[in-house]
């Protein structure tokens, strides 16, 4: 099986190489057959990498410990669920997954554009081919999962216990799909620049790819945060860890891109921004991979460290240089059609959004890289803690919420004073009343939380008004019932109304974070069985400590009883410290979650003979709303990206040969 896997990798390498060569020759004026052959090679690479991936899965399931990768990440006692999940637990497997997913996406793009965008496709194929070839080279020569051991051990080392969570099936996969998906807008941006086709066709062609990549990246980050929260036992969900930042960088640039392209489609402006952001999102996804795998910065993801850092950073740099050179070359063609003459136009608010996201990206990038720069320049290692990020990101996030509320209320091209008054009166009033009410209730305390909630109310009022106006318009102008109008609102204009849902989710998310950061409490104490601690009015008593032994692990399980300030019994919480065979000692967090707050118990340094442990108890307000906010964001993104039947170009049927009835009005304009 390793032979088949290795052979498949070799074929993928050859096919990837041919994709680049034939694609480039075709793009430089070669024959159509050459371009089609390059596209065929992309499909061939996808087939070969599928065979390689299936070979690895078979080797994992067979627990063939003669294969180094299998011996390193599985063991006899590992369940089938995590055995297959071990595919992407290590460097070699996760790179194979990357190359495999990219090849499948490349083949899908080729198929999707078999009769479309023929002027762009040679460059698109070449660009995706270069990226695919790069990752296939990494998998074949630098991190090959099919390397065998001289002698097979009796059992494998097993999977890192921290990875034995359902998140192993969601977080990495969603992130990889998001990262890899950004290759498509990158390839089309490069193609548009190279072919000199800089209208908005390339943007429309990748709209759905970009939206889905963004949705999956968001979902990946969401599940990563949730996983860190329930598994790592430090009472948090985001620590500005370099690898967390690595996923945030392409997300920030990708989010800016999704907003920015709307202006090009509507007004023909921000063209330079759009090609730059499409290239930037891709460069950041490679740079993020470099941060995760180079070992240059210590992180919870250290299991994926390797020596391929220089190759990854070199590739990201190459993409950046090529992209920048193409933009500079095509600058005369990228000049905007229109111009922004007032800050109260919608175009201006989109530009401001771009600037804000880029500012956030610079903050995250600088905070992540500063320790390396400091080490290189001054020889002193400086750590940049969460306080740096919070101090700079919080004001930017507050301005962002204000923009999220204001932007949809502005009109394209022209905004009269009457129009502004009509649109802003209700949402601003809602925001102001919320601010005044909450300030009075809090007697001036918790100013940050109050400000975020007031801005959140402003945004929610905007979203409600937008959706209501859309519904009214459909109800009045198209005579639709309210439920039908709601359905059609999403079906006919998915992006327009998926957007507000995403905005509502962002507000819920940021309000949850503001609540959590502002009102979180934490107590740490050494407790014997029978002793208690109190946090945020809740008393937590260490009731019992027992042992549990299974073939896979040895665990010390603590039982804690929680009683609130009024004496109500909130039930028991079970926290655990476990030692897996051949692996490190890990803590399993005990948690009692409600809509209002979580009670989060972590047990460390357990002494089973004295029945003593170091216990940390966290009162975590509003965490539930952080997850809900993130889910709403993903749902809104999914709604915007969903291929609604009414939004498709349509297959050739009788109805396609007629004018759609909705457009059969005899008058020219209403």
């Amino acid at each position: 099986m390793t032979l088949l896997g290795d052979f498949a990798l070799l074929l993928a390498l050859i096919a990837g190489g041919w994709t680049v060569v034939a694609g480039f020759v075709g793009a430089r004026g070669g024959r159509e057959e050459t371009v089609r052959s390059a596209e065929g090679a992309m499909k061939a690479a996808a087939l070969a990498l599928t065979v390689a991936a299936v070979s690895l899965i078979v080797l994992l399931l067979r627990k063939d410990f003669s294969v180094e990768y299998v011996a390193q990440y599985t063991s006899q006692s590992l369940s089938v669920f995590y055995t297959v999940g071990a595919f992407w637990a290590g460097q070699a497997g996760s790179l194979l997954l990357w190359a495999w997913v990219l090849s499948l996406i490349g083949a899908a793009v080729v198929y999707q554009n078999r009769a479309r965008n023929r002027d762009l496709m040679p460059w698109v194929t070449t660009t995706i081919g270069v990226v695919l070839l790069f990752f296939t080279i990494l998998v074949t020569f630098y991190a090959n999962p099919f390397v065998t051991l001289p002698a097979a051990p009796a059992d494998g080392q097993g999977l890192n216990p921290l990875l034995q969570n359902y998140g192993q099936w969601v977080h990495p996969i969603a992130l990889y799909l998001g990262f890899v998906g950004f290759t498509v807008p990158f390839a089309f941006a490069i193609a548009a620049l190279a072919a000199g086709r800089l209208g908005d066709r390339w943007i429309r062609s990748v709209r759905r790819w970009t939206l889905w990549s963004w949705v999956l990246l968001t979902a990946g980050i969401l599940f990563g945060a949730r996983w860190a929260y329930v598994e790592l036992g430090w009472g948090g969900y985001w620590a500005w860890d370099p690898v967390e930042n690595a996923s945030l960088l392409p997300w920030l640039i990708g989010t800016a891109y999704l907003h920015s392209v709307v202006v090009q489609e509507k007004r023909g402006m921000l063209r330079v921004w759009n090609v730059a952001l499409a290239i930037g999102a891709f460069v950041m996804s490679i740079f993020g991979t470099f941060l995760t795998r180079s070992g240059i910065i210590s992180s919870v993801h250290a299991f994926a460290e390797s020596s391929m850092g220089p190759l990854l950073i070199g590739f990201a740099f190459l993409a950046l240089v090529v992209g920048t050179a193409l933009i500079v070359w095509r600058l005369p063609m990228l000049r905007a059609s229109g111009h922004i003459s007032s800050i109260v136009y919608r175009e201006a608010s989109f530009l401001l959004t771009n600037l804000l996201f880029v500012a956030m990206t610079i903050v995250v990038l600088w905070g992540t890289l500063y320790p390396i720069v400091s080490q290189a320049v001054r020889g002193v290692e400086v750590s940049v803690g969460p306080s740096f990020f919070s101090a700079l990101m919080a004001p930017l996030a507050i301005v962002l919420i204000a923009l999220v509320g204001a932007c949809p209320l502005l009109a394209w091209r022209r905004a009269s004073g009457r129009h502004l008054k009509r649109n802003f009166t209700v949402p601003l009033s809602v925001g102001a009343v919320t601010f005044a009410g909450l300030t009075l209730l809090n007697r001036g305390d918790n100013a940050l939380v109050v400000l975020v909630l007031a801005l959140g109310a402003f945004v929610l009022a905007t979203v409600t008004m937008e959706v209501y106006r859309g519904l009214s318009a459909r109800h009045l102008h198209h005579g639709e019932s309210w439920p039908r109008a709601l359905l059609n609102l999403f079906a006919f204009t998915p992006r327009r109304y998926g957007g507000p849902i995403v905005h509502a989710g962002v507000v819920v998310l940021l309000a949850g974070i503001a609540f959590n950061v502002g009102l979180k409490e934490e107590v740490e104490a050494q407790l014997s069985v029978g002793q208690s601690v109190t946090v945020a009015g809740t008393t937590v008593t260490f009731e019992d400590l027992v042992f549990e032994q299974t073939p896979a692990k040895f665990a010390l399980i603590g039982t804690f009883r929680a009683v609130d300030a009024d004496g109500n019994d909130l039930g028991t919480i079970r926290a655990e410290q476990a030692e897996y065979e051949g692996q490190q000692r890990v803590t399993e967090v005990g948690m009692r979650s409600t809509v209002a707050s979580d009670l989060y118990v972590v047990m460390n340094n357990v002494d089973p003979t004295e029945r003593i442990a170091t216990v940390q108890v966290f009162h975590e307000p509003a965490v539930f709303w952080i997850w809900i906010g993130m889910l709403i964001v993903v749902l809104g993104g999914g709604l915007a990206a969903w291929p609604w039947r009414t939004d498709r170009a349509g297959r050739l049927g009788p109805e396609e040969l007629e004018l759609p009835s909705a457009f059969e009005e005899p008058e020219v304009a209403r």
Partner: protein
Amino acid sequence: MIPVAIGSFALLVAVVYLIARPFVAPLRYTQDTKLEQLLADRGRLRAQLRELDMDFETGKLGEPEYQKLRARRLQQIEATTLAIRETVPDGPETSPGVPDEELERRIAARKHVLEELEVRACQGCGEVIDPEDRFCRRCGADLETTVETG
């Protein structure tokens, strides 16, 4: 070992076939290209028209701009529909719908109105353009040399 050898050989044949086929077999998609493009174009125009209507109905676009853009979109949809019919002269049996002559009459009438509204369009792709536009926002053509009215 034998299944692996067979599998490897089958994979090799498939890879060679996918790469070499375009050089030896005729291209299958050429005939479909124009029709697919037209259908995609019309789908896009329909989506743009819906967006335009919503922009106007929710107060995001002024009346004069809306009238110009809508008239142009409708004309483009009609023209594309006509082109689709011409591409598939023996297409599936359809309900009577709007006859070709009526469609042509409407396109001509709309062109007249567009002239009255002084709507300018890119000659390359038909996109509506503003007086200050230098390049077409859709196809990127230089508008100083390629502009038509209506």
